[in-house]
């Protein structure tokens, strides 16, 4: 097991800065997921850890040992690629053992490692097949197997499930999680799929434009997003962002409400308000934190309904503000209906004009 440390790491492509000065600590045996939109630098960062790309500046250490200039082959890392990168002219068995054969490992050792991977990933039936004769999921299992036989200190995965269909992706997620439990080695995993990130990670690193936006457990990332980007990127349907002014509104609800340009004022919860009267804020509210409440004065005009099995997503307008609401259970309303809705003010996320999260402490300071 290996801990990884990135200190002041940057990457440049010509005059373009792909990774801005970045610090990150990954604990030994941890499963860390790099999450972010396309082009945010997550794969670049992974390749820098692998040694497939040189860093422009900064230091990368494995177990306190500087590996910044160590060639990829000597770092003890293995990588699973999105495209599987299986050797098409070799059988599964040859694919698994290729690296070990080329580096002169004894036959018995090769057989032991291959057998272990084959058993772990249930590849026994495909050993004599070539990649072209395998399905996407089987190919990906072989790719993972090829990484495992290296017995790497760090296992890196670059969007390994992106080419699979939804069902296979879901089952492979479970297999990867089980694999990590069994192997116990440090894993760094890149994805743009938040479900993958939330279900697999011990910690998620949210990246945007070559910068780390937030590092935290899946729960922290979801419940306490550090800024508007993280709040917007994590969660489906996307979080509702309402911009308005905090106003004094009598003694009810601690005396504060959020006045929105196109909606009636929304009362704010007294115990959870990190703002003062007159503040201009953005308030984020998750779709599942909006509920149907017959007693509410606010109404949502439904324009689109999305039935996803266990829940129903409603898309519509409250006043002139577009709102997404997620309600567990089956469809009760359809497009054109007016639904009385209540915003759970105690679940509001407050962000300042720069998009940074406001905490009660920050507001009082």
């Amino acid at each position, binding site marked *: 097991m290996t801990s990884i440390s990135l200190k002041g790491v940057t990457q440049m492509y010509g005059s373009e800065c792909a990774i801005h000065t970045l610090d990150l600590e990954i604990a030994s045996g941890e499963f860390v997921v790099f999450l972010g939109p396309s082009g945010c630098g997550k794969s670049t960062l992974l390749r820098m850890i692998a040694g*497939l790309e040189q860093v422009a500046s900064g230091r990368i250490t494995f177990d306190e040992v500087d590996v910044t200039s160590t060639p990829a*082959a*000597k770092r003890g890392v293995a*990588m699973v690629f999105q495209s599987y*990168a299986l050797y098409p002219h070799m059988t599964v068995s040859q694919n698994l053992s290729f*690296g070990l054969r080329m580096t002169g490992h004894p036959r018995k050792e090769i057989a032991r490692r291959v057998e272990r991977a084959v058993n772990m990933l249930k590849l026994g039936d495909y050993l004599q097949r070539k990649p072209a004769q395998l399905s996407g999921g089987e190919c990906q299992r072989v790719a993972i197997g090829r990484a495992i036989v290296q017995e790497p200190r760090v296992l890196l995965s670059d969007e390994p499930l992106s080419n699979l269909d939804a069902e296979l992706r879901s089952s492979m997620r479970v297999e990867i999680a089980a694999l990590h439990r069994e192997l116990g080695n440090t894993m760094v995993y890149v994805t743009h799929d938040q479900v993958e990130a939330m279900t697999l990670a011990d910690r998620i690193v949210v990246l945007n434009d070559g910068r780390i936006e937030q590092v935290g457990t899946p729960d922290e990332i979801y419940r306490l997003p550090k800024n508007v980007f993280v709040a917007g990127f994590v969660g489906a349907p996307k979080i509702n962002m309402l911009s308005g002014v905090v106003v004094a509104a009598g003694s009810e609800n601690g005396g504060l409400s959020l006045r929105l340009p196109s909606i009636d004022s929304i009362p704010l919860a007294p115990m959870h308000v990190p703002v003062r009267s007159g503040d201009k804020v953005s308030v984020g509210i998750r779709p599942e934190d909006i509920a149907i409440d017959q007693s509410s004065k606010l109404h949502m005009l439904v324009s689109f309904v999305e039935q996803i099995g266990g829940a129903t997503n409603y898309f519509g307008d409250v006043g002139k503000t577009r709102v997404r609401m997620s309600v567990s259970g089956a469809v009760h309303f359809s497009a054109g209906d007016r639904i009385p809705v209540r915003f759970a003010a105690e679940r509001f996320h407050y962000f300042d004009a720069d998009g940074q999260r406001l905490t009660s402490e920050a507001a009082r300071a």
Partner: protein
Amino acid sequence: MSLIRIVLRYAVLVIVASVFAGPFLWLLSTALKSGAENIFQYPPALIPREATLDNFKRVFEALPFLSYFLNSALVAALAVSCNLMLCSLAAYPLARMSFAGRQGIFLVLISTLMLPFQLLMIPLYTIAVTLGLNNSFLGLVIPHACTAFGIFLMRQAFMAIPHQLEESAHLEGVTRLQIWWHVLLPLVKPTLATLAVFTFVGVWGDFLWPLIIIDDQTRYTLPLGVNKLAGAFGKDWRLVAAGAVLSIVPMMLVFLFTQRFFISGALRGAVKG
């Protein structure tokens, strides 16, 4: 597709095929005609009245044609092997490694394609003689051993292979030479076949360079043999035609057996280029 279009298409194909196959068929017809038949008759007759293999027999009696054939085979085998090996070795860094001047080196290599052999003939001869390579098989092979065209073709083929394959092997601790041999070369077999055919055809049919570098008749290749046949039996074109057919047949066989690879490889080079 309408019938007219099909007929038109086949008509064009037959005309083009006749243009290309016509000279060879005429050559074959001449080689099969007996001495009693006038090969210059008008209108020319493509089908011999009495086909005979006698001309082929006479060719072998007149000159050591088998020896010329073996010389050509040896030179072609050596040239093809060297060209495949050296061109793919040279192409690998140009396609897959980043180093200063890579593009410049490639441009210089490509620009040599513009130089005709006639321009290089004299300096090449001087070098060969200085190195003592005249009248040797090595002297015949070396100009074909590593060609700019071959490097270009192999570079394009290597560039079409996904980088992840190489990176994956690299992370497994596989050396660059091992990657080249075990990962990349098996994946460019069609291009290797294409280059092999191009090189074989070039070397097998090469007349000018062997004419310059070889004096010793025991080292003659087939084109020199056919030329000698033309000189010695200039009045009997049946013999010359039989010798020419004998020298062409191996080339046709090589193409027939490799055309599957050759066509896909040639297309690959063209598209990726």
